[in-house]
């Protein structure tokens, strides 16, 4: 089935969302947060080992991955949770949907506009930090750093998509924010602990070949694996990620899985949003 989509309303909605975030300095603020955190972590990341200062790119990226895995999903969820439910609660959604625009177009426009804002922040923030790092560590470090930035962006876009799904399904803003925070806890903190717990409790009694598949069900894990498998030096520090068979650790496969993680929540949101308007 081909769903007819017109681009003009999508671009208009996306433009408004994007410029709203530029005007209220959201993009600037988040870019600064990323840049400052990245530089601080790059410099002080090895403080536990008794040294400070810029080290190799591998170790730096490993530290940055830990930062991004907490920060980016949270920022993306906060950016997106209010999008639909907020307009519904204030009453502006009704007027929007009375115009020649379909729910799908509205949703896509919202997503693209917010994704644009998040992309600007991520690229500007980590880009700025990256320039400083590469100036210190030399040009050889560019490729892994660009890879890290790309995957950080993908991670943000995944959680933005999840946020829009939450925003479409939730009955009110309070619920939406609660669900968003709960999802952050689950994916970022609980999921890995749960897997490790099962791993330890099972004491090798079960066939654990399905375990790598479980990692695909958490975009935060995908992001971690995507970054550390390229980094020989740091792979040994990570428990869970090292059970990943090399065949499943292909960057293309992992990136593809993350793209699916962007498409799936948005698709569900579009499907539910249509019927959501009808049963209102």
């Amino acid at each position, binding site marked *: 089935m081909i769903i007819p989509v017109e681009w003009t309303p999508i671009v208009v909605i996306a433009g*408004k969302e994007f410029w*709203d975030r530029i005007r209220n300095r959201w993009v600037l603020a988040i870019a600064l947060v990323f840049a400052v955190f990245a530089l601080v972590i790059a410099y002080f990341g090895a403080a536990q080992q008794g040294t400070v200062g810029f080290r190799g790119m591998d170790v730096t990226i490993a530290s940055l991955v830990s930062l991004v895995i907490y920060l980016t999903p949270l920022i993306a969820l906060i950016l997106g949770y209010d999008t639909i439910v907020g307009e519904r609660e204030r009453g502006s959604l009704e007027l929007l949907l*009375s115009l020649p625009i379909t729910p799908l177009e509205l949703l896509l426009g919202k997503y693209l506009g917010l994704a644009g804002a998040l992309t600007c922040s991520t690229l500007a923030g980590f880009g700025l930090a990256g320039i400083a790092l590469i100036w210190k560590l030399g040009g050889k470090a560019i490729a892994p750093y660009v890879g890290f930035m790309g995957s950080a962006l993908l991670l943000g876009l995944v959680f933005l998509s999840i946020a829009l799904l939450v925003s479409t399904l939730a009955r009110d803003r309070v619920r939406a924010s609660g669900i968003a925070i709960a999802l952050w806890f689950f994916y970022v903190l609980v999921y890995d602990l749960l897997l490790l717990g099962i791993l330890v409790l099972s004491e090798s009694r079960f066939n654990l070949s399905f375990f790598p598949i479980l990692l695909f069900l958490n975009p935060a894990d995908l992001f971690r694996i995507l970054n550390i498998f390229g980094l020989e030096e740091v792979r040994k520090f990570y428990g869970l990620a090292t059970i990943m068979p090399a065949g499943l650790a292909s960057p293309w496969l992992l990136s593809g899985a993350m793209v699916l993680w962007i498409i799936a929540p948005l698709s569900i949101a579009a499907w539910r949003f249509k019927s959501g308007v009808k049963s209102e």
Partner: protein
Amino acid sequence: MSNNVISNNVIEMRDVAKYFGDTRAVDGVDLTVQTGELFGLIGHNGAGKTTLFKMLLGLLPPTRGEIRIAGQPAHGEAFRQVRRGIGYLPESLALYDNLSGLETLCFFARLKGADSATCKPLLNKLGLGDAAHRWVRGYSKGMRQRLGFAQALLGSPRLLFLDEPTNGLDPQGIREFYQILRELQQQGVTVVLSSHILAEIQLRVDRLALMRTGKIQALGTVHELREALNLPLDFQLTLRPGAATLLQQALAKQLSATLQLDGEIAHVRCPRLHKMVILRILTALNDVIMDLHIREPSLEDVFLGYSDAAQ
């Protein structure tokens, strides 16, 4: 738009109902509105007016029944084209506080595919020219309502749905609002508006429907509604002192007339049909009646009459 627009009925509703669980928000509405008509929807809050508007806009599918706007069913991809010719002002209007009036209007213009160059003149027309570059956050209720109305007028719609449009407007604003509606009507624009303020709408609409608990209780021109309900006329008389008994005797044979005395003031109520009979009796008493007013039932009476009759 399709050729169907030229057909006389812009809106056709057949046995339309909308249930929310056990609540019958709209319950079997049949209604046609003709091109160029200024149509009023009257009812208390919760009578089903807003639900009716949402169904006409295709925002809510009816539980049963059929709705056609400009000959098209009010849903699906074909309806998008029809929607371009519809302007809508919702009852609870929410705008974006972080945009200026002009930016708000231009945003909606682009979504509707209307020319952005028309935004500034439209704001001027609605008396918001000076506030065009101010944030909507600082707008008063009346200014927001004007901006919402401007939004509905974008793209020269052929059909306007205005849900409680004069909400928050001052008397001057209300006059200007109807002035604009009349201009639009002369251009052949069809307008459906709702209100619970009857005095305001009474002299201004061509036809109206009285809604109550999801049903249309009465439909027609103000005149037709009055005739249909046959509300009594009210003769208000100022009598000379001591003339009350004379009046009582004169009216004794007219069983359909009721007399109510309040000092020197007397009220005689009678069915419309007996108007001339009563007038003749009263004329004969011209020595004792100093003054006489005949009060026709207003739409307010009609409205209350229907509400009472239904209870």
